[in-house]
């Protein structure tokens, strides 16, 4: 963090204003307190102020209630992760206070609801304590019936004061949020906000002002990963989907159910996971790439049908929002343990494409990429995201939608002849021709899961099985040759190369920055195309003594983790090793730095 980072100094005089470049605010309460709403407002405000923002939240797996946190990091410079330590902790309850004080950096500010929290005398020496009777003052501001409601907005007012946030912009955001509802709700919200904003924090605390953002790259949009994925699929031209509710995938299906009809499409809630992938494949066979998705156990259930789409060469997009597994596992925690099932799940030799977005912006663009790969190569594409990207809010440069949105309506004009599994295609790539297309030769194709000849009729010929197996493999090798080699973050030669995929990109880059600042020779790459892998990784690995694959999954029986195992199989290079963890939480920067150091130390002995 830069020298202008927030620091609180006890001061006896009048409140002073310090310039800061970034701040990490952790809001801790119960899930029904609307703390996500405070975080959401802050994130959206940052987006509108062309600041960088990243959030992180945890939710209990219970239906209603239970402790929950929302962490938001706002910066005028680049924000890579939601931050290891908070500058400010907002604590609504005793359990929030006691459970999260450790996440606050020493000397940080804890702003607590003095109606519910009894400060600990020892901690008051280490952290700056500001008690406000939030619950009572909220009731005072908006009336007695709103006992618990509105205190989140009151708190937003306190934060706005503390960070000298742009009040008109926040009022506008509050107005947008409560638009269309009973006007008294909006009035109450604004009353709570202003009461919080005008509450005197006294002279015990300084206030802060963000330095103006250096970013001048036009407008930003602010959303979470699941929203970005849903909108990306729409931009890609997807007009049909089917799914079954499961956390954390459900948000995408709800979004598509709501939005697709505007575009003439629909999203169907099915009786189960198998029906949903089958319906999506049926629609894909019908001529237009369709989407299904799931999390955890739902992905396991879909694998047989996925194998059919691979065999029959039908375009399909499957979204996997990973959560802790196996079985029901940890539904609301993050894990990257589905890489193996995504790449290899199912019986038989069944090559498919797996791509992994690294941030919210990627969710949007890689949804489009997935659709285009599926269409071009007539193959299922799995987008492997995770609970952390799904729920975190980021700001990114607004896409040029006029340019990005595409029409993928099927072309049903007659063709002279068509072989869906034409073996003369040198690169193995053939195109799906949808029903409704007149084939002038009078020979019509069958899409099938049986091994088949070029028209899709069943065969037991060993030669055809070999040729068709090779065809399904070859087309992905063709795809591999078109994929971009990942860019190296840091110098292209050095001691340690950190390799990541998915939601860990930010903490890994920050770990590189931190290690390099400490004089260590560390670089990183982030792999977004998992299966097939892009060409050229071996050249990158050649520049380093250690290749450490950072993943949120178990090291496995042989000690390499899931991507690590894949890279070992691909390159057979003993310097590839893993940094793995399975605590259900995102990587902290210091965890990566420390584990990398430890790994290199033991690794050197082994070498």
């Amino acid at each position: 963090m830069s020298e202008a980072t927030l620091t609180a100094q006890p001061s006896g005089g009048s409140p002073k204003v310090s310039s800061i470049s970034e701040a990490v605010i952790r809001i801790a309460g119960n899930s029904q307190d609307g703390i996500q709403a405070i975080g959401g407002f802050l994130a959206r405000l940052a987006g509108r102020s062309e600041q960088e923002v990243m959030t992180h939240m945890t939710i209990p797996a219970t239906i209603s209630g239970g402790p929950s946190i929302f962490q938001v990091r706002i910066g005028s410079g680049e924000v890579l992760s939601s931050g290891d330590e908070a500058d400010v902790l907002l604590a609504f309850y005793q359990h929030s206070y006691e459970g999260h004080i450790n996440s606050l950096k020493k000397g940080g500010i804890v702003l607590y609801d003095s109606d519910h929290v009894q400060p600990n005398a020892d901690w008051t020496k280490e952290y700056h304590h500001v008690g406000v009777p939030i619950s009572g003052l909220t009731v005072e501001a908006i009336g007695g019936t709103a006992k618990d409601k509105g205190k989140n907005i009151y708190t937003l007012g306190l934060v706005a004061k503390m960070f000298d946030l742009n009040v008109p912009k926040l009022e506008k955001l509050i107005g947008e949020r409560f638009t269309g509802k009973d006007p008294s709700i909006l009035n109450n919200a604004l009353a709570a906000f202003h009461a919080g904003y005008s509450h005197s924090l006294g002279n015990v605390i300084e206030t802060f002002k963000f330095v103006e953002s250096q970013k001048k790259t036009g407008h930003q949009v602010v959303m979470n990963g699941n929203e970005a994925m849903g909108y990306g699929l729409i931009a890609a031209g997807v007009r049909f989907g089917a799914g079954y509710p499961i956390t954390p995938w459900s948000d995408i299906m709800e979004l598509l159910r709501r939005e697709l009809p505007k575009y003439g499409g629909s999203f169907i809630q099915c009786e189960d996971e198998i029906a949903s992938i089958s319906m999506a494949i049926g629609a894909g066979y019908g001529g237009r790439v369709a989407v299904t998705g799931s999390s955890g156990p739902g992905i396991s259930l879909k694998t047989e049908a996925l194998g059919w789409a691979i065999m029959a060469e039908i375009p399909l997009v499957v979204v996997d929002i990973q959560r802790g597994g196996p079985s029901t596992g940890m539904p609301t925690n993050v894990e990257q343990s589905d890489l193996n099932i995504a790449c290899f799940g199912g019986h038989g030799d069944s090559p498919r494409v797996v791509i992994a977005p690294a941030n919210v912006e990627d969710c949007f663009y890689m949804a489009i990429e997935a659709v285009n790969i599926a269409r071009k190569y007539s193959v299922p594409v799995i987008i492997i995201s995770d609970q952390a990207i799904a729920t975190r809010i980021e700001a990114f440069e607004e896409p040029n939608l006029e340019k990005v949105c595409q029409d993928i309506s099927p072309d049903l004009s007659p063709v002279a002849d068509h072989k869906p599994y034409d073996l003369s295609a040198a690169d193995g790539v053939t195109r799906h021709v949808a029903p409704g297309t007149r084939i002038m030769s009078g020979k019509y194709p069958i899409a099938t899961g049986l091994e088949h000849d070029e028209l899709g009729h069943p065969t037991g010929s060993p030669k055809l099985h070999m040729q068709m197996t090779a065809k399904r493999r070859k087309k992905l090798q063709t795809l591999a040759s078109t994929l971009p080699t990942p860019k190296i973050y840091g110098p292209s030669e050095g001691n340690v190369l950190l390799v990541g995929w998915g939601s860990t990109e930010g903490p890994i880059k920050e770990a590189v920055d931190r290690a390099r600042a400490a004089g260590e020779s560390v670089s990183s790459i982030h792999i977004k195309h998992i299966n097939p892998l892009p060409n050229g990784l071996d050249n990158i690995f050649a520049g380093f003594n250690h290749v450490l694959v950072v993943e949120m999954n178990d090291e496995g029986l042989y000690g390499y983790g899931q991507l690590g195992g894949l890279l070992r199989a691909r390159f057979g290079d003993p310097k590839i090793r893993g940094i793995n963890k399975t605590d259900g939480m995102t990587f902290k920067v210091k965890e990566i730095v420390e584990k990398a150091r430890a790994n290199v130390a033991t690794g050197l002995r082994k070498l």
Partner: protein
Amino acid sequence: MSSTISDIPARGGNILATPALDTERKGLTKKEIAADHPTWCPGCGDFSVLALYFKLIEKRKLWHEKITTVAGIGCSSRFPYFVQAHGAHYIHGRALPFASGISLSRPDLHLFVFGGDGDAFSIGGNHFNHTARKNIKMTYVVMDNWVYGLTKKQTSPTSPLGFKSKTDITGALDQPVNPMKQAISAGATFVARTTHTNPNHVLQMMEAAMDHDGFSFIECLSECVEFYEGAFDSSNPRKGGVFNTVPADHDVTDELAAYKLAGEPFPGSFGIFYKTNRPTKNANEQKIISAAREKVKDLKDWQILQKNFDRLK
């Protein structure tokens, strides 16, 4: 072309173009419709169903490209390979949701699903119920032979009690599924029963099913000469049985009367047991689409998305 199918409006923005039909085209001949020679055993009841499907295509002047034949896994599910038209041979038990994906995104196609009793009532039982209750437009013909034939004589969900198979050597123990009751109680809007030994009746039922706007289900008894010979003799006048059609005074819209018919002891009645008009899933979705499109009718797709993005700033 049946008016019920051609009248369904094409979805806005979903299908590029429905190729203009060449009105001069003659109906297809059997030779043009037949593809691979069926792999079924000589004497199999499925031959009759295939022949009558060809006849339906000829009679109703359906074109190759407008027919989509879908099946799951089983002897009868080999069906699509024998038809010279677009078709798909999907996985075991899941033909209905696959076909639903086609039906809901391609209202311009005639969609027929063929399968057996294992596909429909065992591995795919749940899909049968849900496709019926959703009333997704398609015709589903189950060739019921009361036995697993492709895997060589194991008990099927419709095997009668006491039927001796390789998996029930002392006779089937589990109460068999009654396909007609199942279909009626699941909410199918067209439920009919026929048998392969009465070709005219099979064709009649197929035509009526095709013209029904909704999920139309036909149970067609289809004898497995290899593993359950003589199973349906008592329904075949040529074998000394009786072929009773549904009584003339039967009200096909009366669900309870239909359920009673379905409860008759074998051979029971043949014909349309139940038929009702309930909005299809296709129509209900179209309604949601029309209402949503009305609000954005002057906008291009990217402009609709832009409106969302403007709210996310």
